[in-house]
């Protein structure tokens, strides 16, 4: 019925747009002309088979992670990246699907940069971003705290010496279900898959019991959801300030625990225009109002 992968340069002539089924990503590389051209060819070649490979492993990737999970038991590297990122959180309820978008970004970035000399590069898979930096290079990333308002609420810079190569955002407005009520949780971590899993779990914890929150079992909305019967947030009416703060603090505690365990570099949590920050370097990223 519909075609296969859609591959096109964006009108600026610099960024490559790759779309296939639910994967919709923008990649860009900076460097010498020939190196960039080769990198894009590598990215396109990898992109063509990435989704079909993943599909075969979906049933197992939707199962909760337990102590026996062996990332190497997956056939394809994207699934292994998902399993590796999820396994680090095996004390909580988590499935490898929590990191799917980030893992796809990591996988594509790895293919794009392999054997290439690039100043910097990124693969942005719907807000879950894998980045590559050479010596002295840095990226400045805008922080969007609500998808309805694309104007960045703040910015932060990732420089080469920082142990951060992945940024991911999760919340209740995205395409994936959330157990929590966060507008956005942005996490910085060593790669995009780790950031994606962590952002998903922190967003789940930005939560409070409140009659203004409408929830439904995930499988009533999507019969194949990895969350099964768990209640996912479908709507949030007006929240009082105390409930909002309680939800944010619950999420912050989860983020700080991950930070102390070395799983993430930092996180920014947003709900109703109010923020919490885990990680010292990130406070400056936020508007004064925070």
């Amino acid at each position, binding site marked *: 019925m519909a075609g296969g992968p859609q591959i096109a340069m964006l*009108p600026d002539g610099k960024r490559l747009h790759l779309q296939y089924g639910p994967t919709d990503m923008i990649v860009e590389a900076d460097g010498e002309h020939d190196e960039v051209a080769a990198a894009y060819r590598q990215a396109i070649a990898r992109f063509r088979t990435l989704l079909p490979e993943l*599909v075969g492993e979906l049933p197992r990737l939707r199962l909760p992670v337990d102590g026996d999970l062996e990332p190497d038991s997956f056939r394809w590297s994207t699934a292994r990246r998902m399993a590796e990122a999820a396994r680090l959180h095996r004390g909580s309820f988590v499935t490898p699907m929590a990191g799917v978008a980030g893992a796809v970004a990591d996988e594509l970035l790895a293919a794009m940069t392999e054997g290439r000399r690039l100043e910097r590069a990124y693969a942005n898979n719907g807000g879950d971003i894998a980045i590559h930096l050479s010596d002295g290079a840095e990226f400045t990333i805008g922080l969007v705290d609500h998808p309805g308002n694309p104007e960045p609420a703040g910015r932060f810079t990732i420089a080469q010496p920082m142990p951060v190569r992945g940024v991911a955002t999760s919340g209740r407005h995205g395409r994936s279900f959330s157990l929590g009520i966060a507008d956005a949780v942005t996490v910085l971590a060593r790669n995009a898959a780790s950031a994606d899993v962590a952002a998903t779990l922190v967003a789940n914890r930005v939560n409070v019991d409140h009659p203004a929150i409408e929830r439904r079992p995930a499988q009533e909305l999507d019969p194949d959801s990895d969350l099964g019967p768990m209640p996912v947030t479908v709507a949030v009416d007006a929240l009082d300030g105390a409930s909002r703060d309680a939800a944010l603090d619950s999420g912050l505690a989860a983020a700080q625990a991950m930070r102390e365990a070395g799983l993430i570099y930092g996180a920014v949590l947003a709900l109703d225009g109010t923020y919490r920050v885990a990680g010292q370097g990130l406070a400056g990223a936020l508007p004064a109002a925070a």
Partner: protein
Amino acid sequence: MTDTMGSSDKQDGIVVCDACPVLCRIREGRAGACDRYANRDGRLTRVDPVTMIHKTLSDEGDIVPFLSDPLEWGGDILPRGDTFLTGIGSGTTYPDYKPAPFIVSSRHDGIDMVTVVTEGIFSYCGLKVKIDTDRYIGPEQASVLCEGEQVGHVTTAEYGSQMLALGGVRHFTGGSKKEGNVTCQMMLSLCNKKPVELQVEGGAKMLLQAGKPPQIDGMVEERMRVGCGSAAIGMFAQQWFGHADEVIVVDDHITGVLSEHQAGKFLGMKPAGIRVRGRKSTPGRYFQVAGHGTGWGGTDVTDPLTIIDSIDGQVAWPGLRLLMVSTTGEDAEFYVLDEDCRPVKTPMPANLTVVVDRIGENCEPAMTSVLFMAGAGGSLRAGVTENPVGLTRSVRDALTRVTCGGAPVYVWPGGGITIMADVMRMPDNAFGYVPTPALVGPIEFTMRREDYQALGGYMKSVRDLSEATDTVQKRLTEWSPDNPWPFDPRRKSGD
């Protein structure tokens, strides 16, 4: 937003989307993982991005090849370009009580242009299908059936091709509900460059797909004939001369006989005394040597000797070398007359094989071409202007360019805005449908801003291109350099 037919399995109101390998199972009212396909009332529905076509230019202003095949792409970083918003995925305001979904302004070569972008819901529309074959597909006027329903008919044969007229308002809404739905599906598939199986009543079963060779009664038609039998003789007489004493080129329309033909006479060939069946037109040219069929040269001939009426022993001679060949070069036999002047099949000499192969080489690849034909003269115009006839006049006066998904159209003379467009020049999956049934197709009207004002356009609804498309999902497709760029000035009608 448009609907798609979508093959889907249903269980508990769940639709399985087959748009990509993920095969999402989608509950009613929900969308799949991609947010592009949704389950609306139990039916898989495409939630389209708006398609934009993009032209990339080098510093010198010439067109740079784009990612038409990304793996072949040299990876040039392209400095600048130009974008045209197509009607594909734009939605519609039918019956157009309000302005079209997008009325966008942009500047090209220093001129302010306006493009009115919409998706037309066409109940008056049909397809003209050209099938490159001389094989007999059925009698003129015969019904063309799809899934047992009549969806069109065989129309006037053209040079080297058979023609079908498919769809149209009579099959959409003039017959049974099933006839209408089957017609709609058939048209949607052909317009979206997908294969369709059709049966001519009393004729051939065909598998047709735009831009692909037709398959007729299970056989893929590879090439068009090089010409009729007489034309083939004109083209190759010199090359046969000296290697054969007689050549008969078998064709459903005109069968040629070399020694009798003017070309043979010119070369001083002796009469061979081999008389073919059929009705003689002029010397060396015969009509109706056999029935229509899928055999030699579009006839029903499988043994070419059956078209030989008689061999005159007084004129012919033992050892005479006879070549019989079809007008595509696909079928050929070589004979030598024995003591009693009876033809005996003999291996073909190499110097004749070369010429037979050359006939094949000179046949163009057989294609199926699908032209979408529709009338944009009705209420659709009201989405463009408060004064609908103003649009018709503006198109007539070549002030307004009409495009379908950015592809050029031929505008018929006479009343209304009746257009024809080659679906191969349009982006993939440009068409949708509504259950009426009717086809949904993209249509754009592009003109200078002052001309839009003059024809009574909705000036208050004109928005800048980037502003208009900021909040919608977009799909970018490379402009085909074979198409005129829609913003370039029109030169003549149909350009």
